[in-house]
């Protein structure tokens, strides 16, 4: 808590990330403390988002929540629904440092829990993209993917690249990987984006078409590594080793991919459905403040610093994040022409088309269970029709679950 002595205030910041990300946050905290000698920050990192949830629940339940914590937009609904988060809207409105218009509207919209007031400050604006191995494309005589390429182009390239222990594409079977394809095809993954009551993978024809296309990659065309192969060597490891043509991931992968020195690689937008839109899915984490603490001032000053140019640049330099501040995102600090990927603008080009999944209190659970069942279908462990039906059926009750006073 903010148990400060007369001169300095202590705040605790809980974040998640891998070792390298944490180093980035560390240097940002140091820069902040240099500028604000009256605030001392305890940086409290955890590895996974699961660990983060455990940490946050314990400290909220124990009455000692952190001042600032980082949450993915797919999880904050759970907290927001119970009023555990102090909305930042009023702070942002009063701020002399930050201005709402500096930030990506798509990212901000994702964090308006009631659709109106801003709940948390999104710090990044990542999205799903395609990383591809230029050397493999060259060897196969394929053109590099470009803006607006279509599903068929993608499939053709993937098939061409698949041979022996080489696979054309790597993608994790999960809702957030599947969703942009559905949206691109004009479908929806839930019946109502604001008050969803069920997944719509089977009932909406456009959705179903996209789902089948996605599943066919593995089940029919075999351009995605099968189950056992994926467990033995992740797609990322394959891509690093140069035996995977294309790899779907968000910006997160970049620091790791930068360790590649055996071949050239770049990033491309998602392929577009026939006659569809170049949609992608938002990946964004935001700084939230705990509700009910006596003094939010220090916490807000930390967020201000992190969201301001200086803070955003420090993180952008790690290569891992796409800054949510559009001015920083457009600056060399992010675009960095001397380090791969050359085409970082791809992340920014898609910004107007970014969409987000529902942000209800139980969404993270829905996603979790769906992913487990989708994996069963994707790797052919269960029959496709049966599997998808089961997926919808078993997940449907989760939409109705009440968490706190939400939904009543």
């Amino acid at each position, binding site marked *: 808590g903010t148990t400060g002595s007369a001169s300095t205030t202590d705040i605790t910041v809980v974040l998640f990330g891998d070792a390298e990300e944490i180093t980035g946050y560390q240097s940002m905290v140091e820069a902040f403390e240099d500028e604000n000698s009256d605030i001392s920050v305890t940086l409290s990192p955890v590895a996974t988002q699961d660990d983060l949830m455990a940490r946050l629940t*314990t400290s909220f339940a124990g009455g000692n929540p952190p001042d600032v914590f980082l949450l993915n937009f797919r999880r904050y609904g759970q907290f927001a629904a119970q009023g555990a988060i102090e909305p930042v809207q009023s702070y942002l409105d009063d701020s002399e440092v930050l201005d709402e218009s500096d930030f990506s509207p798509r990212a901000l919209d994702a964090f308006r829990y009631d659709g109106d007031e801003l709940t948390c400050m999104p710090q990044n604006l990542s999205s799903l993209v395609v990383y591809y191995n230029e050397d493999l494309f060259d060897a196969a005589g394929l053109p590099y993917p470009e803006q607006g390429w279509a599903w068929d182009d993608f499939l053709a390239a993937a098939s061409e690249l698949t041979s022996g222990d080489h696979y054309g594409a790597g993608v994790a079977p999960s809702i957030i990987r599947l969703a942009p394809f559905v949206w691109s095809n004009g479908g929806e993954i839930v019946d109502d984006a604001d008050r969803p009551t069920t997944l719509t993978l089977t009932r909406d024809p456009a959705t179903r078409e996209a789902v089948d296309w996605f599943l066919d990659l593995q089940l029919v065309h075999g351009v995605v590594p099968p189950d056992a192969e994926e467990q033995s060597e992740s797609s*990322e490891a394959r891509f690093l080793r140069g035996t995977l043509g294309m790899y779907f991931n968000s910006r997160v992968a970049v620091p790791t991919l930068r360790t590649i020195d055996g071949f050239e690689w770049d990033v491309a937008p998602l392929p577009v459905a026939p006659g569809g839109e170049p949609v992608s899915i938002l990946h964004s984490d935001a700084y939230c403040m705990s509700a009910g603490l006596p003094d939010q001032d220090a916490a807000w000053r930390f967020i201000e610093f992190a969201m301001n140019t200086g803070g955003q640049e420090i993180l952008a330099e790690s290569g891992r994040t796409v800054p949510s501040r559009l001015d920083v995102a457009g600056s060399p600090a992010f675009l960095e022409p001397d380090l791969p990927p050359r085409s970082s603008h791809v992340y920014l080009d898609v910004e107007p088309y970014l969409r987000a999944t529902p942000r209800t209190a139980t969404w993270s659970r829905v996603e979790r269970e769906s992913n487990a069942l989708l994996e069963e279908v994707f790797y052919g462990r269960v029959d496709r029709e049966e599997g998808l039906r089961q997926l919808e059926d078993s997940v449907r009750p989760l939409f109705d679950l009440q968490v706190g006073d939400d939904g009543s």
Partner: protein
Amino acid sequence: MTQTTRLSAARSGAPPGGRVRESVSGRRPGTRRAVHVLGRFAVPALLAALFAAPLWFMVTGSLRPAGLPPPRTLEILPPEPTLAAYTRLPELMPLFTYLGNSALVVAIAVPVTVVVAGLTGFGIRLLSRTARRRVLVGLLVVLLVPVTAVWATRFEVFRLAGVVDTFIPLLAPALLAVSPFLILLYAWSFGGIPESQLQAARLEGASWLAIWRRLAMPQVRPATLAVAVLAFTFHWANFIDPLLYLHSGDRYTLPLGLQFLRLLNPTDWPLLMAGCVIATLPCAVVFLFAQRILLSDDPLAALRGGRR
């Protein structure tokens, strides 16, 4: 001294596999020898190898060069063993800080565990029969409470005590002797000390605490050794308590660090195995020191051997 040797021989018994069976079997010498060697060495060696195998895979897996896909056939040793994975570990995380924190926690928690378990076990020894039975039922109930039931609610206690984000919550299991099982281990061992010894010491003016410290504890050193090893393993491997009750990154312990590692690349096996080796090594070393006594044919005799 003949008396002594015979006594200790009787104490260690003649287990069925040993001397007795050897002379019992009445088959022809050749077959008997074959069966004998098989029973005495081949089968145990096979089982021992089976149990050692996962550790072996762990070590050899960590010695493979990074980035290469693992072999698809069984290999006893990687073709070009390398320590590359180990040198990468400290680059990826503050390995030595984590190790230092873990060491500090263990250095405090293990003695505390031994003292609490020892005191409690001795207390049980002193109680009357009926009281003892009641305490044992109580211990069973304590054992019954799932750990998950207290994780979050304990935080409240720690917050009220103002010890969140210190190492003190990590000592909580030590104050609980890690598990009632360790207390039982002590109670059981203390049961072997004859009543007359306690009374003799009382007569000589020793307080119960002095009796515990000077008489009881020194006599159950194998139990202490066992408790210490088990406690070491527990505290060293403790993942949940640091996750929930530690906040400052620079106080983190090794298991939390291992978690960061897993996130980096879930199939970078050499790196993961190296992390596992580092996490396991201290426990293994501690245990290897203890096994000399703990697992010898006659632990008491082995202890005495160390004493002279």
